[in-house]
């Protein structure tokens, strides 16, 4: 085994550097080779701490390998490989370099054994990913990217503050169980929560991801949020608060997803909802639940990337990903349609597809720990997912009414990437033991028993029946060109709405105060100039003789008076 101490982010960072100086075929080869070689390398690395150093008296562990980080490490490599294939047609150095750095930063964060290293990669994730949004090179994307950057940097700053408090409390920066005791725990939870799209902190995701390039969104959907899930699973397993946060996350975005028109934004809402399942798993914290959260992260990365890829292909070919403008595309993009349906079936957790084998673990963990109402919310979200993603995405893009758009099938590299993910989605669904073997805890678990399969099938088919019934009766909300208000309204409309009038008022007050003083000052100047100016009373020039005459008069008067007195 060579170079055990080589952390997994290094090949990606070197790859990014090599991409910068290479062209064409060589560049593509490098981009493909990095995740493959990286994954093989990681496969051979044993668990343990492979790199430690000291900084200001604190022990840092920039490279720590254990079973929890390995699951995320493997899937990040696989996802990076698929996303690279998907974006092979792109000739944009900025995007290619940044996506490599982005994937590398995610790996760095997952294998970070201390909070300082985590913070560094946390910020690198932000700085590299924002360019994938800006790479769209539109005004809208630029604005969305700025908002994304501000919120993500804020998350990093809070994490740093939390880490400093933590170091003071514990005397150590080691990234182990943190818990919600003291300021440090809460600060770190908030930092993780922003990246994990907790309720009211989720709008950066909904706002930013749909503005990225077709290929950029695929990368974005994989890394940032799953790093956050990993961080939560590491720092806050068994924190009951997270169960309720997660349950809320599963339910509230689905209402927005139903009425959203931009299909990539629908997928972003559904991403938040799926993250909710993982957060619930982390919150419960039993070995089954943590396994479920990790397994769901793996399957979720694959099917969500697949769905974003199909929508990216549609956007790439037709120039739009809006439900109101699409429809009938199955005629010209049959392969993409098929892959989209596989992704949709996986996210809906149909038996034999990947979502089923991971989501059922979380559901059982919830039920066996006695969170009845949370369980009800989760099955509501499980039934709903069929509506807002499982049916809505394929239906409105590829079927529904024919939009008349005739285009060509997606480029070959996109089809290959979608094919690989679709294959993995089915493979993990049919043969889940592959996935279970990689999970942090060894538990004998079999998702395929009659009870679960039947329950899930009933839930999904009757949910589909509801869709058919509502659609046939014309009660399904039609696709309308629109945007829906979300939390981002507060900082995109309300805050500017408050600040602008305040600003205007300050300007106005300032102007009137100034003008009052100026008026007064002008009057003063006028007075001065009136008396002392060129024509002023006090500045008239008189001939010298004039004065002599007056002095003569004065002296004569004086003389006259003195004569009068002396007598």
């Amino acid at each position, binding site marked *: 085994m060579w170079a055990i101490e080589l952390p997994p982010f290094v090949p990606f960072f070197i790859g990014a550097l090599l991409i910068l100086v290479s062209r064409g075929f060589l560049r593509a080869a490098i981009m493909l080779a990095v995740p493959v070689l990286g994954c093989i390398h990681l496969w051979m690395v044993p668990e343990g701490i492979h790199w430690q150093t000291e900084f200001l008296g604190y022990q840092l562990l920039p490279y720590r390998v254990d079973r929890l980080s390995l699951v995320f490490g493997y899937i990040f490599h696989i996802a990076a490989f698929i996303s690279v294939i998907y974006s092979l047609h792109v000739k944009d150095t900025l995007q290619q370099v940044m996506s490599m750095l982005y994937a590398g930063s995610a790996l760095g964060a997952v294998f970070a054994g201390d909070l300082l290293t985590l913070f560094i990669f946390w910020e690198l994730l932000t700085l590299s990913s924002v360019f994938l949004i800006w790479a769209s090179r539109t005004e809208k994307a630029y604005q969305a990217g700025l908002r994304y950057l501000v919120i993500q940097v804020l998350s990093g700053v809070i994490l740093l503050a939390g880490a400093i408090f933590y170091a003071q409390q514990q005397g150590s920066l080691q990234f182990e169980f943190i818990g919600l005791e003291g300021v440090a725990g809460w600060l770190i939870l908030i930092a993780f929560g922003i990246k994990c799209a907790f309720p009211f902190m989720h709008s950066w995701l909904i706002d930013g991801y749909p503005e990225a390039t077709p290929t950029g969104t695929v990368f974005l959907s994989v890394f940032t949020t799953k790093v956050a899930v990993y961080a939560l699973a590491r720092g806050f397993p068994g924190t009951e608060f997270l169960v309720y946060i997660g349950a809320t996350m599963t339910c509230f975005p689905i209402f927005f997803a139903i009425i959203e028109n931009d299909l990539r934004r629908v997928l972003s809402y559904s991403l938040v909802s799926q993250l909710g399942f993982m957060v619930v798993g982390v919150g419960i914290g039993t070995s089954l639940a943590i396994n479920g959260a990790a397994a769901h992260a793996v399957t979720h990365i694959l099917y969500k990337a697949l769905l974003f890829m199909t929508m990216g292909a549609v956007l790439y070919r037709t120039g739009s990903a809006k439900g109101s403008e699409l429809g009938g595309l199955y005629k010209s993009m049959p392969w993409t349609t098929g892959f989209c349906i596989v992704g949709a079936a996986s996210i809906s957790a149909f038996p034999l597809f990947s979502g089923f084998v991971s989501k059922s673990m979380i559901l059982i963990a919830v039920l066996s720990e006695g969170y009845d109402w949370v369980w009800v919310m989760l099955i509501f979200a499980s039934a709903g997912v069929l509506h807002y993603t499982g049916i809505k995405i394929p239906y409105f893009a590829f079927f529904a009414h024919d939009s008349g758009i005739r285009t060509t099938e997606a480029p070959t590299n996109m089809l290959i990437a979608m094919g690989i993910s679709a294959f993995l989605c089915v493979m993990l669904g049919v043969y889940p033991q592959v996935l279970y073997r990689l999970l942090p805890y060894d538990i004998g678990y079999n998702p395929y028993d009659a009870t679960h399969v039947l329950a899930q099938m009933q839930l999904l088919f009757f949910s589909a029946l509801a869709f058919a019934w509502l659609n046939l009766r014309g009660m399904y909300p039609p696709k309308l060109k629109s945007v829906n*208000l979300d939390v981002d309204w507060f900082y995109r409309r309300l805050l500017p709405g408050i600040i602008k009038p305040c600003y205007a008022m300050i300007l106005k007050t300032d102007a009137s105060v100034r003008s009052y003083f100026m008026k007064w000052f002008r009057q003063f100047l006028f007075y001065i100039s009136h008396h002392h100016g060129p024509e002023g009373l006090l500045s008239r020039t008189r001939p010298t003789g004039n004065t002599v005459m007056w002095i003569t008069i004065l002296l004569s008067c004086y003389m006259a008076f003195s004569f009068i007195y002396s007598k």
Partner: protein
Amino acid sequence: MDNNKHIFDNPKNIKRVIHLLYICCAVLFALDFVIHRHTVHPWENLWGFYAIFGFVGCVALVLIAKWMRTFLMRPEDYYDPEEPLADKKTVNEKGVDNVGH
């Protein structure tokens, strides 16, 4: 151009899909009475719990979402920056004006 008839251009095929869905639902509902479940939660013992929950839940979901449109929906250009553009224009006009002087 493609003039071929596609599978769902024929309304009969759409009907077939929907009928297939009805049959699947009926069979799944019937299976509830045949297969013995290992339930954890008492509600799971109710007949057709998952089926009814799935249907009612989704109808409620869609109707509530539809109602949410009444106060959440805005035109597509809602967030588009109107004022800065307008500002730029006047600045330009002023600029041109100044040159004219």
